[in-house]
């Protein structure tokens, strides 16, 4: 279980904008293990979606990976030609997004969209592909697969559309599924269905999941390991038990205290003073320093990655 599938090292990414260069990722270090679920958690603009897209080398226009390394099964993805990446996308690494009505094509039926992906990556007869498409719709637990195959996305509810995009993602036996806020737009009861489905698919098909989310509670329930992102850096990472229940980094602690939970009723929510840095100025020291209640002079210099124990790391001087 603990063989690394993806290893990201010191990934740096910049966006060129009218306002100047935005430093979106400032040295991301990540490991995703085979058949594991890694949560990538952080607030708006921390770089979590861009990290997911970078692994597929689908960086949006204006963005550029300036340095770093992304190893997939030991192969450096950043050196590979586009044709190689086209084989990786969909077949080895697949992705689902927050809004399935934006990621599905409204002009094609569900069947056409699943089959397009399969024909791109697999050699099989038409009838065989149709059979597998039906099978996939059954795997994602959509009722009446033959009918769903002929429907257009607008005929389906949000939860059903997310199941369809999941079927497409799984159609070619990917080893890694990048799920970018897959349940954020869904109702709670439907979210529970999709999370449950993801959990069972991981067990049945052995697919590793990179779960990108802003919701700590989703991480607590879905993931085994978690990386907390702040201003384009991994500030704390390790097993969920350690990071969410014995948090070391000030931002992780503050985020947990800002999250309402059932046991905290009657107490007040602790707001985090200050705002997230814009990314326009490169940050020399600890990114959370200006907002940190435990700020020290040494925090003006970039903090080292400290191992709290064998699996739990934190970028903070306090634990050196």
């Amino acid at each position: 279980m603990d063989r690394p599938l993806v290893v990201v090292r010191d990934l740096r990414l910049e966006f060129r904008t009218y306002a100047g260069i935005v430093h979106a990722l400032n040295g991301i270090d990540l490991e995703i293990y085979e058949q594991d679920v890694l949560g990538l958690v952080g607030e708006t603009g921390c770089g979590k979606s861009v990290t997911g897209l970078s692994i597929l080398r689908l960086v949006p226009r204006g963005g550029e990976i300036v340095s770093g390394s992304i190893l997939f099964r030991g192969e450096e993805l950043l050196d590979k030609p586009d044709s190689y990446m086209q084989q990786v996308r969909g077949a080895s690494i697949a992705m689902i997004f927050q809004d399935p009505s934006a990621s599905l094509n409204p002009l094609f039926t569900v069947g056409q969209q699943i089959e397009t992906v399969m024909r791109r990556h697999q050699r099989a007869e038409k009838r065989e592909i149709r059979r597998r498409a039906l099978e996939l719709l059954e795997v994602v637990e959509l009722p009446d697969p033959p009918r769903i195959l002929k429907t257009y996305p607008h005929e389906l509810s949000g939860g059903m559309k997310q199941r369809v995009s999941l079927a497409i993602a799984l159609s070619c036996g990917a080893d890694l599924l990048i799920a970018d806020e897959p349940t954020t737009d869904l109702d709670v009861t439907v979210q529970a269905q999709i999370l449950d489905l993801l959990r069972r698919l991981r067990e049945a098909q052995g697919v590793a999941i990179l779960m990108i989310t802003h919701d700590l509670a989703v991480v607590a329930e879905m993931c085994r390991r978690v990386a907390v992102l702040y201003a384009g850096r991994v500030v704390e990472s390790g097993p969920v038990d350690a990071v969410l229940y014995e948090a070391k980094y000030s931002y992780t602690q503050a985020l947990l205290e800002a999250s309402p939970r059932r046991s905290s009723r009657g107490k007040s929510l602790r707001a985090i003073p200050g705002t997230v840095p814009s990314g326009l100025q490169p940050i020399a020291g600890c990114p959370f320093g200006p907002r940190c209640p435990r700020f020290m002079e040494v925090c003006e210099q970039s903090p080292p990655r400290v191992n709290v124990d064998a699996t739990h790391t934190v970028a903070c001087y306090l634990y050196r």
Partner: protein
Amino acid sequence: MNRGEMSQSAHADHPDDVLVRVRNLVKHFEQGGGFLRRNPQIIRAVDGVSFDIERRRTLGIVGESGCGKTTIGRCILRLIEPTAGEVTFRGVDMLQLPGRQLRELRRDMQIVFQNPFSSLDPRMSVLGIVGEPLQTHTSMSHGEIRDRAVQLLEQVGMSGDHIYRYPHEFSGGQLQRIAVARALALNPEFLILDEPTAALDVSVQAQVIAQLMELQGDLELTYLFISHNLTLVHFVSDSIAVVYLGKIVEHASADKIFDNPQHPYTEALLSATPSLDRELQQERIILGGGVPDPANPPSGCAFHPRCPRAKDDCSQVAPGLVDVGEGHLVACHPE
């Protein structure tokens, strides 16, 4: 600021502690009608909802998308006209009130919307936004309005220097606080908060919620808090009404709803909500399907097709809201 004469006397006639009383509120929308299509579909967005909100308390309304929770809020203010029912505010029947008196009463009831990026006019300065209600409803001079705007901004934890800035210069959390400042401009007694933090990050949500709770204490405000987030509703509310397809299925104190839910839908909602609390991360009750189309609701109890405890008569007879003890209301056929 002084409240209107009429509402003053109404207040005296209505001595108990209920500020807002809603009875059998109904809102039906027509869809797909028009010149060529004779039979429009009727969507029962709100289908007979009743509740009271006590002074200085918070009632939370929770439900999934399309359940009618936003429509309930807007019907109370008559931002949309209810089809039927009764809404009284301080004992005055809102729905019978002619325009002028309605406007007069509306000074005391305000609303904060979900998305501050669309609810604040990008072409107005903060002074314009926060000062507009004062301009409409009072005879304050420009200088007085400016002073009051500065005071309101400070009340929501922002610097008074911001009054000449425009919405694009602020973050989502700051904008939402400006929206709260605008709502507070006329010293209202009652605030409808319609998903006020749904568009915000957790840390910013914490700022806004903490601010709202502090203001409630300081200004003796009454809140109707509408949200899909159960954990958050539990955190801020004194009592909670759970809404499914235009009807209240359970209504009780916040703690009763959480500790002793009686309706299977409430149970399922609670169970489906991901939690950071370890002891709540157990086996889930996972409902099949989604919320049915409100244009074509299931017969009998609208929840019966998804209900794990459905019996034969659940598809025949819609259960009424019944008190099962100490004001804990549940709409479910007894076992």
